[in-house]
């Protein structure tokens, strides 16, 4: 049993941050003219609501808050990637923590936990909306019709299992690779720590780091967005009775 305390603590802290700020905005919110920060939060809410409306058939009060949670939480966890790679681990080592992984989404457990939760929810809604028989029929008669039942079972099972796997691994892969690039860029300066080489490698590190940082802002937002949209889509597929 290995507990990745760093992942758990950081992700929970970010979650608490999110909920605290959200609760404060909700508490001070008016239905009149919204102030600056309320406006910002409301625009995020509206954005998520639009996504849910566009790609989710029917109505389920769980979907929208879940999509919002995924979007903001994943974004916050990804955002940890933008903090200089060695900063928090060094501060941690001063405090006696000798191993610190700052970005929870680069730990496979965090993305897979969300993907698995989404998978279990979609399983639940599949059984609830289609019924056990309807769900079984989906495995038997899809995608090739009733004369290719064995192939259908294999195909649908792969399809269903690929959903959570690709969902979790996509986020993990992107964030892990991004973090790795940051580490490599950070090593540029370190590799030539002494001597005249610094004159070349240090400015290069600064420029590359900034470039990757700017690019990575897009990546973390995009990954959070994709995770959210795919969650909505998968749960939406679970809610449609006829496949």
């Amino acid at each position: 049993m290995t507990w990745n305390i760093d992942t758990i603590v950081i992700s929970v802290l970010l979650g608490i941050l999110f909920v605290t700020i959200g609760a404060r905005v909700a508490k001070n919110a008016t239905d009149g003219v919204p102030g600056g920060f309320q406006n910002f939060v409301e625009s995020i809410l509206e954005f998520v609501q639009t996504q849910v409306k566009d790609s989710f058939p029917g109505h389920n009060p769980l979907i929208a808050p879940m999509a919002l949670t995924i979007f903001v939480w994943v974004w916050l966890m990804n955002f940890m990637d933008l903090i200089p790679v060695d900063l928090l681990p060094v501060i941690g080592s001063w405090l006696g923590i000798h191993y610190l992984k700052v970005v929870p989404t680069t730990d496979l457990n965090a993305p897979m936990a969300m993907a698995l939760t989404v998978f279990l929810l979609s399983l639940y809604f599949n059984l609830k909306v289609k019924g056990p028989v309807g769900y079984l029929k989906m495995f038997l008669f899809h995608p090739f019709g009733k004369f290719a039942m064995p192939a259908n079972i294999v195909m649908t099972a792969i399809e269903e299992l690929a959903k959570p796997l690709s969902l979790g691994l996509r986020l993990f892969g992107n964030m892990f690779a991004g973090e790795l690039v940051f580490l490599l860029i950070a090593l540029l300066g370190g590799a030539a720590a002494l001597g005249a080489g610094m004159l070349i490698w240090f400015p290069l590190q600064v420029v590359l780091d900034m470039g990757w940082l700017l690019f990575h802002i897009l990546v973390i937002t995009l990954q959070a967005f994709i995770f959210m949209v795919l969650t909505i889509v998968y749960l939406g597929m679970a809610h449609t009775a006829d496949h």
Partner: protein
Amino acid sequence: MNITVTLFAQMIAFGLLIWFVNKVMWGPLSGIMEARQKRIADGLAAAEKGKHEEELAKKKALELIKEAKDQAAEVVAQGQKRASEIVDEAKETARAEAERIVTAANAEIEREVNQAKEALRAQVASIAVAGAEKVLKREIDAKAHAALLNELAAEI
């Protein structure tokens, strides 16, 4: 990078976070946003209604003004008619009064003339009788010749 028991901790954290977000943020905020949407919609509807009512009121005001003008014209016409009637009536009354006064005056004049004539007649008769008395001295009996004298007086 291995799947560990952390996975389950993260799942629980994820579930709890969804619950919290729904309870303290999504629920209240989306309620507020819905309330605002409703308020805006109500405001727009009210504005639309107000505009419509203003139009109606304008139309009604124009109608009322027209009616009032018509009524005023009618009243003026009636007044003029009544005024001319009154004038005519007054003229008629004045004419009748004048006629009456003239008639009364004529009657008075005639009466007085007659009175004067009567008085003169009586006097003439008495003068004649006195003259005749003086002329004829006692020859004439006033009582015996009264009829004759009266006849004479009437002829005067």
